[in-house]
């Protein structure tokens, strides 16, 4: 009976991956702006609360209006993401639901209700609640969104670095044994700060870009100058913060996901004193021939920098793709099994589990049962490898990781420079009279910042492949048993739906920006 309907095709897995990626990419277009604008409008409303100058209220309301247009799409795409864990990754939902479900439930109870309660007060409560209550509501809306980010990033970090759990052969799933290890995983902490801070950058760039557009048009000068001032300060602090937390994140990846780091660096054969590739000409469409150490035609590298990034030591050892596949010995003498050995041990774990279940059904107990349990326990760290057919499946697609990482870091560095220049003009010159190229470059930075932000997620998620949960469960063992045609249809429905709604949102946003703020006192506008 158990196998009568088992016909999972590879197409369905790819469509499920595509659908999740599509939803996540769209979701991440809206969420960072929500998180970032929450800070900007919170600061402005605080200025209003302290000074009671109507200008600050009008400015805060203007940014809140743009926040609202964007917020709805973040909510709409967010619900799909949560339910897709069940609809498209049902095996995953059972195998680790005992751990993974908790952060999602906490997110709902703690964060979503806070967000949804106070966002209504923020939008509709200006004339119904006191200024203090309204200010608190604005900040609590942002806080709710940020707490939401914490829990979803705890969940994501757990997929990258599963901790605080044990496999239970009776229930055939992993079960949580330490909530603290899951909720306060060092990877989750790094991820939270890096991700939220990078979202603040998006909010800051958006604010500066819209304001510079007003300056180019010669209108809303006061709003533009004050917004640029706040946006650029938030942006510069956040950009530097993103660089620091980015380094910490990369260090952590090197410790727990060395294959991801090797793919990000296109590092085929590692060693000590590793240099960091600045840029290299890698074919973006083809997996490189890493086995034969196929060097790209051009590679510019910074000596020792990769060793520093990965180990905080210029002479540190960094394994490459081949080292990880073939096994390696670290300078301290410790060894890492080869992929082949891990696959064998994974198969041993799965086979011991099958035997254990069968014996328990047939005999109920006995010494043989204990023996199988012992084998299972010894090999459990490699359980997921038992589903791997060939070691090449363990290598993520190098070009995407390589280029996405460089886009993220490159634009991140550019943003630090950009915000410094903007602040220079704000404080030492006149940002209104600044050269037009600066205003135009602010507008150009907006799509670049979004591309960088999405690139960060591409690295995080493509670099984890083929795993849904690192070393524990590959994608093809995580899916639901659906027909590929069903998932393909829903993929295209989502594509059309999200794209149409994005077009609507952008058009509304542009019209709203064109319309500009509404002033209680028109003298405030200049």
């Amino acid at each position: 009976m158990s196998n009568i309907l088992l016909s999972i095709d590879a197409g369905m897995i790819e469509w499920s991956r595509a659908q999740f990626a599509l939803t996540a990419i769209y979701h991440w277009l809206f969420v960072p702006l929500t998180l970032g604008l929450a800070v900007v409008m919170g600061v402005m409303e605080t200025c209003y609360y302290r000074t009671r100058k109507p200008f600050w209220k009008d400015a805060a309301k203007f940014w809140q209006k743009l926040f609202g247009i964007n917020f709805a799409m973040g909510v709409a795409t967010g619900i799909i993401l949560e339910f897709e864990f069940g609809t498209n990754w049902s095996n995953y939902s059972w195998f680790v639901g005992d751990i993974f479900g908790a952060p999602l439930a906490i997110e709902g109870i703690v964060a979503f209700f806070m967000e949804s309660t106070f966002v209504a007060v923020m939008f509709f409560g200006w004339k119904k609640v006191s200024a203090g209550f309204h200010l608190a509501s604005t900040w609590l809306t942002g806080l709710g969104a940020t707490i939401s980010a914490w829990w979803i990033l705890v969940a994501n970090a757990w997929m990258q670095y599963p901790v605080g759990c044990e496999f239970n052969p009776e229930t055939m799933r992993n079960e949580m044994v330490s909530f603290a290890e899951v909720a306060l995983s060092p990877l989750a902490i790094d991820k939270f700060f890096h991700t939220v801070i990078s979202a603040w950058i998006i909010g800051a760039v958006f604010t500066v870009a819209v304001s510079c557009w007003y300056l180019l048009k010669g209108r809303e000068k006061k709003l533009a100058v004050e917004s640029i001032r706040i946006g650029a300060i938030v942006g510069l602090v956040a950009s530097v913060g993103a660089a620091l937390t980015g380094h910490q994140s990369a260090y952590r990846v090197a410790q727990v996901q060395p294959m991801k780091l090797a793919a990000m660096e296109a590092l085929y054969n590692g060693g000590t004193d590793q240099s960091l590739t600045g840029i290299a000409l890698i074919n973006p469409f083809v997996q490189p021939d890493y086995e034969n150490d196929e060097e790209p035609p051009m590679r510019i590298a910074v000596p020792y920098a990769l060793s520093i990034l990965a180990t905080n030591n210029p002479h540190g050892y960094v394994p490459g793709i081949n080292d990880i596949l073939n096994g390696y010995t670290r300078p301290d003498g410790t060894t890492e099994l080869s992929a082949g050995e891990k696959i064998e041990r994974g198969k041993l774990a799965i086979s011991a589990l099958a035997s254990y279940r069968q014996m328990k059904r047939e005999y109920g107990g006995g010494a043989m049962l204990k023996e199988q349990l012992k084998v299972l326990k010894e090999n459990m760290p490699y359980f997921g490898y038992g589903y791997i057919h060939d070691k090449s499946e363990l290598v993520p697609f190098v070009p995407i990781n390589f280029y996405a990482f460089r886009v993220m870091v490159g634009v991140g560095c550019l943003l630090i420079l950009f915000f410094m220049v903007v602040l220079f003009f704000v404080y030492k010159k006149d940002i209104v009279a600044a050269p037009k190229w600066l205003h135009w470059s602010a507008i150009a930075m907006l799509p670049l910042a979004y591309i960088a932000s999405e690139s960060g997620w591409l690295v995080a998620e493509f670099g984890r492949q083929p795993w849904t949960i690192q070393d524990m469960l590959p994608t093809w063992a995580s899916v639901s048993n659906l027909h590929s045609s069903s998932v393909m249809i829903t993929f295209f429905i989502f594509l059309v739906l999200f794209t149409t709604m994005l077009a609507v949102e952008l058009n509304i946003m542009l019209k709203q920006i064109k319309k500009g703020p509404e002033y209680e006192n028109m003298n405030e506008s200049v």
Partner: protein
Amino acid sequence: MSYEMLQQYWWFLVSLLGALLVLLMFVQGANSLVGSLGGDAEGRRVVINSTGRKWEFTFTTLVTFGGAFFASFPLFYSTSFGGAYWLWMVILFSFVLQAVSYEFQNKLGNLLGARTFQFFLVLNGILGPVLLGGAVATFFEGSNFIVEKDNLTGMQPVISQWANASHGLDALLNPWVLVFGFAVFFLARILGILYVMNNVDDEDIRSRASMRLVGSTIAFLLLFVTYLVHLFLKDGYAVEPATGEIYIEPYKYLHNFLDMWYLLVLLLVGVVLVLYGIVRTIISKTYIDGIWPVGLGVLFTVLALLLSAGWNNTAYYPSTADLQSSLTIANSCSSEFTLRTMAYVSLIIPFVIAYIMVAWNKIDSKKLDKEEIKTDEAY
């Protein structure tokens, strides 16, 4: 609390969230009637702005309901969502459309036009309650799935399978699922009507709402009583607690209400409150607070029904394909550690409810009228 107690506690919490979700579907109920309640374009906008200040709660409760189910009963999350794929996808599509429609509809440059977004709200107002109600009905009627955990050690390791190709849409072929789904739909309409009457300060809208209350009430009562009679007379899915074996028990749900008399009391009090709120609203021209007794009544009634689906050794998600695959709160729940940890987290819920009530009270301190929607703080 023992592991068994924790399982019961979490079934209570999930049932409470489910009951709250049905209550909060007043948003969908009012939206499904937006044309007839609003009358003209201005009136429609008032109705939409009235529900527009609350839609996030329904949405958030749906998400939290899903999250709580995931955390506490992951095998249900895995089996139902992964199996009844199309049923859940249609529900999700309708909620996505709803989420953007409020914000976009009256904004300059919305490309699709205000009427399109209002249509989306009506669509969600119909599909949301009918399909979510239908999904709840499968707790009693069963679904066509097989769970085989040992698949995990095979070449195709997926443990939950849907036993037909329609992936959830087959539920809509069961007339009893439709009866329950439409009962929830008309209940949502009753709630929506009563909410609008309470929240909107406009005599025309209140008068139109009052007229539509009678029709929705008759339809709801017919469907609900029919389903309740069917439920009490039908065979149910029982579980033998010592062995975990599932078996068919005649009159199982009737037995459940008789065994758990407090649920029967809850159900009866709920129904009486619902009837009281509706009848008083119909009789009195000045009474506009019907949403409160009816809302509380709905909460009690749905809570009693959902609790009866899982408590008293009942399989809450029965399988019509393989009886022994049916899900019970014991065989589908999270580990004791997770349930206990999440139980601590659940202590925050009263605090959440408290701040929601404070915020709602502030926002609703002045009833919504046509003047307010002319300001820039309206959808």
